[in-house]
């Protein structure tokens, strides 16, 4: 399978995302100004500070030409994974419900957190078991998820681990159809024993398994 990782001006985690995706399949970089998704099976909107996060985090990136293609790709059922700033971009683009607010602490948080898989039935978590714990780092200032409507929660911070004050300890959500997923923690930084945890691989392996099934059908 082939992953596509978007690079915006101001992205900073696209190289790690690319390396993580390559542990599960092929991966290519997609430039924000291009309209060609290069036939990828899944799109990753990576972390960073797209377009300087001017106005609000993710608010400008959603107007990138490539995002029009991503929206169309998502409408057709394509898998889209937004990590950190990518999650913010997907919310601003209304591909996911809700919004990200500044952390309650008003501080940048950077630490390893324990996550609990709330929904193991999504294409992004199918390699996990319900309730499974994943150790993955977070690093953000604007990660307090808020949504006035009920949402499909995929990942929660384990009790006592919520780093940003998000509603209901939400760490990651998907859309109703389940093909667009956003999370604040960084699975792409937890794929090598060198950095303490390989739990993030579960996300990339889940995507690979989902795409393999789809191709088989």
């Amino acid at each position, binding site marked *: 399978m082939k992953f596509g990782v978007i690079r915006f001006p101001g992205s900073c985690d696209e190289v790690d995302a690319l390396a993580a995706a390559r542990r599960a399949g092929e991966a290519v970089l997609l430039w924000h100004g291009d309209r060609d998704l290069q036939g990828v099976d899944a799109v990753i909107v990576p972390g960073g500070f797209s377009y300087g996060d001017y*106005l*609000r985090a993710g*608010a400008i990136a959603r107007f990138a030409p490539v995002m029009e293609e991503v929206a169309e790709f998502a409408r057709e059922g394509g898998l889209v994974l937004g990590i950190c700033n990518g999650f913010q971009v997907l919310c*601003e683009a209304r591909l996911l419900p*809700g*919004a990200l*607010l*500044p*952390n*309650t*602490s*008003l501080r940048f948080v950077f630490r390893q957190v324990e996550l609990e898989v709330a929904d193991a039935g999504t294409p992004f978590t199918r390699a996990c078991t319900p309730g499974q714990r994943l150790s993955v780092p977070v690093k953000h200032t604007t990660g*307090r998820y*808020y*949504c*006035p409507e009920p949402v499909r929660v995929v990942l929660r911070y384990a009790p006592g681990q919520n780093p940003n*004050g998000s509603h209901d300890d939400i760490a990651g959500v998907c859309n109703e159809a389940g093909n667009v997923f956003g999370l604040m923690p960084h699975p792409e930084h937890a794929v090598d024993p060198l950095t303490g945890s390989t739990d993030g691989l579960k996300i990339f392996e889940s995507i690979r398994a989902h795409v393999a099934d789809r191709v088989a059908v």
Partner: protein
Amino acid sequence: MRARVLVRPKRGILDPQGQAVERALPALGFSGVSGVHIGRLIELEVEDPAQLPDMCERLLANPLIEEYEIVEDASVEAPR
């Protein structure tokens, strides 16, 4: 026309910036301050002010978490 858009956190949404400032003021001896909220000020020159609400809904504010107030004819302030 010069217009001004004031964007602030929606009522009911925790505003830690406002709270931090509210707690800081008494430390300087200013008492009796409450309800502090911190938002954004956007000044812009527009040909058609009728478009302002749409601009706010679609870009200048995120209506899910923010409310906005449009001040038309903010020309009293000299352009920089």
